[in-house]
């Protein structure tokens, strides 16, 4: 029998704690992965030398790799996994739909279009990010407004308008690829659309950290109230929750972190759908535990996938391809498995 705050012998809080510990362990292990070998003593020496006076016994090169290559990449993977999963879990709650995710609501398609447009116009990193962000918000706004006017089932209306607006922006992206310069712009757009964290630098991490924090913190704080929203607007209102306001806040935050993620990493699908469901299996549907669990599972998942992406083959595999390879079969397993019905 399912216990409300427990799964088997473990309380939900200790599962979340365990996930936190797992994340830290995987972060440390990730520093050792890569073409340039670094030993544990060298790694800890490099890190602790920032706090304690330790005589340098490693090469300057190693320090550069740890701080300028591996650290930003690890941080970016964790942040993006955390953001896409938190956004997915939030979208699922406020739209009362287990199938809602950043991809389905058009947030990623809009961001992709915006970024491709910026690349076409020879934009730099900042303009790519701003453009992706703007079009992502625009797509979700259109999807939301169209679905509100759609006749019949609200939930179906949302998914359908998501499909409509997504394919419209996908067509826009295709058109941009058609007119893009095949010698430099087209490969840039194409590679970017596949999703990759290879562009991670300390500067990109610093740039996305602000919008990500601005979105993640409110989503975490109001997490318990998302439970009430899953019962529908009317019921939530009678329990004293201003559902319109709360929904708007969460949509804005979730879209903000999605756009921030997509603008630096390109299209990374499946994470926002698969991770919240995996987390539901671990800690149940109560957002009090589900939100932090999704954030941690998302970070762990993305970091592992990115480690594979940069170490499996001689050349890096775009991470969007890997998340689909992992996500699709995993989702088939989730929906066909006996047990809880969605």
């Amino acid at each position, binding site marked *: *029998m399912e216990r*409300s705050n427990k799964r088997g012998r473990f309380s939900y809080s200790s599962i979340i704690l365990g996930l936190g510990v797992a994340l830290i362990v995987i972060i440390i292990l990730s520093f050792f992965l890569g073409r340039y070998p670094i030993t544990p003593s060298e790694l800890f020496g490099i890190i602790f030398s920032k706090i304690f006076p330790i005589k340098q016994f490693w090469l300057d090169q190693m320090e550069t790799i740890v701080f300028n290559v591996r650290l930003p990449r690890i941080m970016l993977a964790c942040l993006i996994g955390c953001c896409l999963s938190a956004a997915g879990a939030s979208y699922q709650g406020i739209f009362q739909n287990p199938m809602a995710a950043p991809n389905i609501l058009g947030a990623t398609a809009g961001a992709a279009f915006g970024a491709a447009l910026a690349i076409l116009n020879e934009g730099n990193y900042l303009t790519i990010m701003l453009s992706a962000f703007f079009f992502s918000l625009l797509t979700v706004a259109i999807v939301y407004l169209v679905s509100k006017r759609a006749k019949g089932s609200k939930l179906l209306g949302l998914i359908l308008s998501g499909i409509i607006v997504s394919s419209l922006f996908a067509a826009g992206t295709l058109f941009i690829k058609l007119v893009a310069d095949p010698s430099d712009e087209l490969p840039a757009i194409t590679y970017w659309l596949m999703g990759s964290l290879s562009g991670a630098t300390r500067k990109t991490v610093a740039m996305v950290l602000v919008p990500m924090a601005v979105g993640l913190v409110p989503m975490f*704080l109001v997490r*318990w109230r998302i439970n009430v929203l899953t019962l529908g607007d009317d019921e939530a209102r009678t*329990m004293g929750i*201003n559902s319109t306001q709360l929904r708007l806040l969460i949509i804005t935050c979730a879209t903000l972190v999605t756009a921030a993620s997509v603008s630096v990493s390109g299209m990374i699908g499946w994470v926002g759908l698969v991770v919240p469901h995996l987390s539901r299996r671990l800690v*149940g*549907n109560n957002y009090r535990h589900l939100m932090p669990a999704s954030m941690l599972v998302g970070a762990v998942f993305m970091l592992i996938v990115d480690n594979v992406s940069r170490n499996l083959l001689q050349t890096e595999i775009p991470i969007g391809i890997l998340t689909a390879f992992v996500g699709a079969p995993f989702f088939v397993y989730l929906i066909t498995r006996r047990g809880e019905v969605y």
Partner: protein
Amino acid sequence: MSITISGISFSYGERLILDNVSATAEEGQLLSVVGPNGVGKSTLFYCILGLLNGFRGQIKINGDDTRELGIKEMAQLVAYIPQSHYPSFNFSVFDMVLMGTSHQVSSVSVPGKKQAVLVEAAAERLGIAHLRDRGYTQISGGERQLVLIARALVQQTRILILDEPTANLDFGNQILVLTQIKSLARDGYTIIQSTHNPEQTFMFSDRVLALYNGKVLASGAPSDIVTEELMRKLYGVDIKVQSLFQDKVRVCVPTVVVEDNHHQSGFE
């Protein structure tokens, strides 16, 4: 706490759903709203709850106009108990009941021990404490209805509004749920419920409001409403009403069944 509805009219576009409806529910009273499907019972409730605002007329709770009350203030006065439903996500019974404490908990916080105590007490009161850790979608319809009532108790309001609490329940569960509702009224809760079953209306209500085509057809004590004439007007079929146990119970039987001899012989 009393609730006074005076001259409420509401229309969806051209279509008039409620036409000058007035009613009063006093403290400790169980008011049943009866009438055929689509007569405006749910619309009336949505107006009372503040979910629909475009109505004419006035609704007062303890003398305060509901239109001047905010969402949170309303949640402190009136709790709504929908028909037992299947939400998109399966919550434990405990978590489901806990949601009733929303208006007591700050937006950026989670419920604490005080709220948990309220949940335990409400579950105990309704005899569902043993279901605490079960999934809400995995229990029976009657149990789900009791969970929703517990959630309303946790909300700590004195007025409860129930939308057909016995719909889709088997006979035993209907009686179980209605007995609990009646006992809440005896404890001083002001209760308004909509219902379909005239016999149960007679057995469990203190007052009855009969709606027909958006208008008040009759209102008064159950013994004045559950009559052959009114039932015929209300449901459009001929009904025999039989009094039993010194008029503690009234049985409503379709005339076509009791007066049709061929029908009877068909059973032999």
